[in-house]
């Protein structure tokens, strides 16, 4: 784990691009680095926070808003006790009157990402609800702005940023850079916090000629996912 400044990450990206700062201006590199960090955070959840739901529970209130700053809710605690995650349909099938049940909250279910419900609704009110989740990342703007990350995460960001910046080039240069997608996927798969995640496939189009024994045309080769 180390502290990396935007300038340090940028230098690694620039190295990967043969120091071509003219074609890839600083503003674009910074934007792509931030984009890479957002993506990696959504995948790997390296920035997690526990934030109290504003105010306390209200007696018999079912639905609450996720606190600002939580991007992906992961767990909810009521008075320091972890609630069991479930889904609306599961709750509705198990408890016929789940919308009006009251008592000591035991479960929670999301309603999108910005709201959630607790079951049963707190019958007394005044309880403390806390949500833990993947938190929004603060955008790195100035060269001296820093982020606390493991080196392997930085490696992923650099790999991805290179292909991302070369997207505008198209052609062979982009195709070659996009091949690192496979390498990126391999690294990220290990780091991802989502066990159910199935990575999308990425294919390279390759021209074939009659000499290959495949006839003239285009062949798709799986490059990642």
């Amino acid at each position, binding site marked *: 784990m180390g502290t990396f400044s935007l300038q340090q990450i940028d230098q690694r990206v620039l190295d990967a691009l043969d120091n071509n700062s003219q074609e890839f201006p600083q503003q*674009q590199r910074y*934007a792509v680095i*931030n*984009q890479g960090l*957002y*993506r990696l*955070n*959504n*995948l790997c959840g390296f920035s997690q926070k526990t934030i109290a739901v504003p105010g306390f529970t209200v007696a018999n209130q*079912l*639905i609450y808003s996720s606190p600002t700053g939580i*991007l*992906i*809710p992961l767990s909810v605690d009521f008075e320091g006790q972890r609630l069991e*995650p*479930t*889904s*609306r*349909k*599961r709750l*509705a*099938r198990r408890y*016929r*009157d*789940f*919308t*009006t049940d009251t008592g000591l909250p035991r479960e929670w*279910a*999301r*309603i*999108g*990402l*910005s*709201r959630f419900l607790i079951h049963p609704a707190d019958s007394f009110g005044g309880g403390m609800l806390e949500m833990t989740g993947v938190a*929004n*990342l603060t955008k790195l703007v100035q060269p001296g702005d820093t982020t606390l990350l493991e080196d392997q995460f930085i490696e992923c960001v650099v790999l991805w940023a290179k*292909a991302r910046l070369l*997207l*505008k080039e*198209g052609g062979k240069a*982009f*195709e070659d850079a*996009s091949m690192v*997608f496979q390498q990126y996927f391999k690294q990220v798969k290990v780091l991802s916090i*989502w*066990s*159910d*995640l*199935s*990575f*999308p*496939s*990425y*294919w*390279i*189009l390759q021209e074939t000629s009659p000499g290959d024994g495949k006839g003239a045309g*285009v062949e798709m080769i799986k490059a*990642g*996912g």
Partner: protein
Amino acid sequence: MPATVEDVYSEVCFDLLEDGGLVLGLVTFQQFIDYLNLVLVDLLKETGISVQIFTQTVQAGVSQYPVPEPIMRPDEAYLAGTLLEQSDVQDLNNRFTKWRYTPGYPLRWHNDEIPPQTVELVPVPNYTGAFIRGTAFPDPPNGQFGDWSASVETAPAVFTTESAPVTAALTVVGPVLPTPVVGLGDPFPEIADDFVLAYVSFGVLERIFSSDSELKDPQRALWARAQYREGIAILKAITGELGPDD
């Protein structure tokens, strides 16, 4: 400052080598806006990260109820706070005779073979629930957003919030239809900034590089698609990790 259309626009312009804005005419600004709106609808429809709840009055003898516009499609229906199982016309025909005409307490719902944005309760309701006044009464939508419970008129000019069993109302739950964006300063109210800035531009680029135009580039379209689909996959995985909705 929240993410705006301009953030996505400047990214797309950079990738199309038109850093100053779309002026070459290969893709027009309006095309960009159209693609962006398509991507936003696709993202919210596939992932359900933004969900709305709508509760409306049930009337005796009326089986079909509208699903108001902010809800893209009904995913769940509840009656008096109790889940109704989804069905379809074929299943209903096989199970029940004259189900469209037989009154009773509704146990199922379906939304096929009826007008879009409508749900039909089966059997036809044999009761009228408490009257729920819409915010724009008498104009539709006649119902209230946000909860299974609703505010009802208990005496002239007296409104109280009553729970689902008391109102005996119909509640539909579904993903939100995003507000269409039109200008560079428009925000994305339904989607968190980190998702917008990380994935949405790739959905737009995939469509541009796949379009029948001078910018057609299958390889770049495939790459942009992979980036966009990664976002969809993560958001779907979140749903899975927290318990599938069925």
